[in-house]
């Protein structure tokens, strides 16, 4: 297990913290310090709202090592309300058929299941159908 990598990525993983470009206001996720729109430096941290919609999706039946316990599960590309596309697992889907354009919201969940009873627990963002619109 790559502990330093998990530790370094925790802000973006736990809470969808990305960056905003001070030149053209483009929101950047995942953070890469360079604005993909204008090519200028973009280092200001930006807290995404977590709202978005399903852009495309696929269901995984043959899960890779570390993810077998959760199979089958659905992976989606989510278009965030602020613009960027992110790839993440969908969760809490029961009874809800996934559809392109379905509104989703970010939640922080366990990314791997506890098949390794001694290792570190890894948490990060997933998306689920919106619970309630305030």
């Amino acid at each position: 297990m790559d502990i330093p990598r998990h530790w370094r990525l925790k802000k973006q993983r736990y809470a969808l913290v990305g960056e905003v470009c001070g030149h053209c206001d483009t929101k950047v996720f995942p953070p890469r310090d360079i604005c993909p729109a204008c090519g200028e430096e973009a280092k200001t941290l930006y807290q995404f709202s977590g709202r978005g919609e399903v852009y495309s999706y696929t269901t995984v039946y043959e899960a890779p090592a570390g993810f077998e316990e959760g199979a089958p599960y659905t992976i989606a590309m989510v278009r965030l309300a602020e613009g960027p596309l992110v790839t993440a697992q969908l969760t809490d889907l029961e009874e809800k058929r996934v559809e392109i354009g379905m509104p989703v919201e970010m939640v922080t969940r366990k990314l791997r299941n506890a098949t390794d009873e001694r290792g570190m627990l890894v948490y990060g963002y997933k998306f689920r159908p919106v619970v309630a619109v305030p």
Partner: protein
Amino acid sequence: MADMEKLLKPEHPVGIVGYGAYVPRYRLPASEVARIWTDGTGGLPIKEKSVPGLDEDVVTMSVEAARNALLRAGIPPTEIRAVWVGSESHPYAVKPTSTIVAEAIGAVPNTQAADWEFACKAGTEAMVAAMGLVGSGMARYAMAIGMDTAQGRPGDALEYTAGAGGAAFILGLEEDSLAVIEASYSYVTDTPDFWRRADQKYPEHGHRFTGEPAYFHHIVSAAEAVMEATGTKAEDYQYAVFHQPNAKFPQRAGQMLGFMPEQIETGLLVQDIGNTYSGAAIIGLTAILDIAKPGDRILMTSFGSGAGSDSMVIRVTERIDASRGKAPTTQEYITRRTEIDYAQYVRMRGKLTMK
């Protein structure tokens, strides 16, 4: 000790600035447990209990409740100077739940963080400590969470009721509060009604010993003392909420203290989500805050085995109307519901061996 001196009262009056609940979406009907273990015979202590998904634990559930509390408080997370999580199902034996929660909500690094344990009253214990931290002027805001994903041994009476859920509260000064904590009192003795030894997966309980000398004695003693010291009677409260290991205990405790069923029903969630342990009394409080009016008085009394009770007199303020709509209500989480059978439950609760 004189009644007034018993109260835990901070230097500056403290209240709830934001609150948030969380209940996972899966439900196991009690009839499913009976189908497997008693051939469907015998009475059922509740209708159904909540079960966490495969990717949920006390960390993820606390994060969601904490985010809901932040939405309602409308304060920057960096102003929270303590993140305290009470639970008896922390995912790690060593490594705090609270540091992960604090990081996820953006409260790091200028914060206290610790995990609290006192069976089912760890959440209210953290609330009382947070009152002290804010009321002494050490912190502007402090967060207290009670959250559990309790497990009962397969076939045990506890398997019918051991549910998952809880709530988070941000405490601050009276003038920022949607509900003021007017008084608090704690009643504690050494009582061996329920325990789980280190490294054991499932708890043990003292069977008949759990009722009178434990639950009822501590709840009633704490609630009577706080009412006595504040000069209040049952009829002065619009709502009362108690720790709820099943439906009967809190109803009887309420009756013993002179409360009517109408005062208790709003906060009585155990029939629909089970016993959420550290979360039980406080998630009942969130359901009350979701509908209470300014000026309403609430009596909340927790119970933790081992044993003790924290009892609080809470008064709702004008700020409630502007705050509560900013996050999902407790009932919205409860009605978001997917029924599972015992086989799915066994898989989701990790009772299925993969190796």
